[in-house]
């Protein structure tokens, strides 16, 4: 099969770019650990409220883990429990969430914290919160008539500023 000289150059250039690009994505995924949320943790969605850590949702400080804080959230049509969280700026936070009924989203607008919540599964994502401010948490997967009523708040506060205020 004949391939024109220029087409060979064009494809060589294109495929080289592709290889470089995928290598960067792969390197940051497998070496730097920047994978999308892919937890394989299972839960009985009909008894979420009785199962730890969802029996006591909210923010907690943890010791001896790779992260400093855990934010535990329960989603159900059409609310998050609890619906307000506060974490200190610069801390490493593990977001742990699940749903009690249909599929919901867990997106913190303006960040890359974005995961699907599916019945029977626990979703997890670890990240460092390095932007101060108040962030909107919202459901980004259609879940029914009250879909857009589903929201919560994440406050990322600078510990120094907070001390000054007090």
């Amino acid at each position, binding site marked *: 099969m004949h391939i024109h000289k220029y087409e060979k150059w064009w494809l060589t250039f294109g495929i080289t770019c592709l290889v470089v690009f995928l290598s960067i994505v792969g390197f940051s995924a497998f070496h730097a650990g920047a994978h999308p949320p892919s*937890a394989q943790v299972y839960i009985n969605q009909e008894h979420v409220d009785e199962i730890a850590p969802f029996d006591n949702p909210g923010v907690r400080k943890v010791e001896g883990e790779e992260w400093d804080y855990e934010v535990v959230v329960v989603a159900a049509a059409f609310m998050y429990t609890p619906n307000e969280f506060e974490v200190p700026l610069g801390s490493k936070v593990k977001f742990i969430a699940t749903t009690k009924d249909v599929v919901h989203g867990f997106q913190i607008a303006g960040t*890359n914290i974005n995961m699907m919540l599916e019945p029977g599964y626990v979703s997890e994502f670890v990240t460092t919160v390095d932007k101060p401010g108040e962030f909107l948490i919202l459901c980004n997967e259609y879940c029914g008539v009250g879909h857009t009523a589903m929201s919560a708040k994440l406050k990322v506060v600078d510990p120094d500023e907070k001390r000054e205020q007090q």
Partner: protein
Amino acid sequence: MKNANSSKQDGRTAAGIILKKSFLTQGLKTEKRETVDRRDAKLAMAHIYVAMTALLLGGLAGLVQVMVRSGQFQLPFGIGYYQVLTVHGILLGLILTTFFIFGFQISAVSRTAGTLSDKQRFWGWTGFSVMTAGTIMAAVMVLLNEASVLYTFYAPLMAHWIFYLGLAFVVVGSWIGAFAQIARYAQWKRENGKQPGPLLSFMVVVNNLMWVICSIGVAVAVLFQFLPWSLGLVERIDVLMSRTLFWYFGHPLVYFWLLPAYMVWYTIIPKIIGGKIFSDSLARLSFLLFLLFSIPVGFHHQLTEPGIDAFWKFLQVVLTFMVVIPSLMTAFAMFATFESVGRAKGATGLFSFFKKLPWDDVRFVVPFIGMVAFIPAGAGGIINASHQMNQVIHNTIWVTGHFHLTVATTVVLTFFGAMYWLIPHLTGRKLTPKLNRLGIIQGIVWTVGMSIMSGAMHIVGLMGAPRRSNFSTYGGSEQAAEWVPYQLAQAVGGTILFIGIVLIIYIFLQLAFFAPKGVQEYPVAEVSEGAQQTPMFLENWKMWITICVALILLAYTIPFIDMMQNGPPGSVGYKLW
């Protein structure tokens, strides 16, 4: 003509002049059937009538959506936003596309491989009827508010079982229709011995193969999961598995939309602009690469989901990116054709060949806008599929902006551009200069409207605004307040697009019923003289299908077993609308 076989053998051993002869003989052969048989034309037009009805109603639903999302309007009579959204997605994403594509493909096979046999046409009509019946079943359930589950119908939201049965009808009907088209190609191969089949028909076969292989996924989900569950025969549904089966189908679905546009670009645009097909073999190869790399890639729609190991997500990300190769080949072929035409017409400078293209011919201009739109659309697609980068945009309205560039601009403008010769050819009429001019205006209206709407969606999506969501202040959130101006821009763009839809419906009616009677050419280009003989391995279907299935098994087997062995017991149904 009599020695097509011997000249083909010559072609293998000698180049140049003898090859020209073989193409001349091929040209003679196709000349005999340059028109689509009236009976086939009727079948094709039946599909296109349904497609245009879907376009008008689905477009109206889209107009309503952008209005409501702007926060300035509210729906009357208790109509739900998500009901309208379901109508929009199903009518435009599934019905407009599938019916238009089948109408076009039937005409393409009839034009290049020959008139359908009575039996093939019978199966074509059967497929059409089954698909239409399914569409009506699903539509009635959506209108009765029994199925406001959007076109992705994610479990455990549970629609009425008739909705799922309707979808099954659409899929099965499409298999019957695809079978009729493939059968015509097989007949050509039987009658013409060992030589590559007509390029355009070959492309139709590849697209149908891809469609059948991928829609098995959604058919399995509907028949074995959703129907028994919605009928109450089983209590629970495996949510992750149903989503995985859907996206095994959902991504090739977008290539099923795109490949007919590529058929127009590869085989028809060169003829319209007065050129030849750059390379027959490379065109075939690029289609086969799409067959291989469109299917084992569904996880890139599920990157942020639990229950799927990140390694398998990454593997499918890599497979997803392989479609870059045939896309680059297509871009090269297009520009090579444009340049050869421009140079043949006397262009000398580096880019001056562009000026020689027929910028006053709607059949070229409108699909060309579609090609240009594919550059930002493809770049956006690369972001979407990039493993961890997906988290920035997943389920934001950026994604909506993205596929309004791919399917609603690139694909749809190519289809609109094709209508200017296809509809009059099929109805025995002629494209008039007036409609040609109006068509170019329609293309510009579309471009303006889409630039505003899709541009706003991309920007506000990056700011975090979600897709598939009604207007909301999110409890007075400051972030959500910043989205409102962009949502107004979406409404402005969406309104301009609706004007574009009204225009194209008017043009369609003119072309189908009122344009002067005559013969409108069905343009199909010939292969350029310099091209070499198409190698037969490109028609080794067994080999290509085997590789295709092997890639699917590689990408899906282990994660699927994982879901079956470790997955939760499943979910009961909910009706939350």
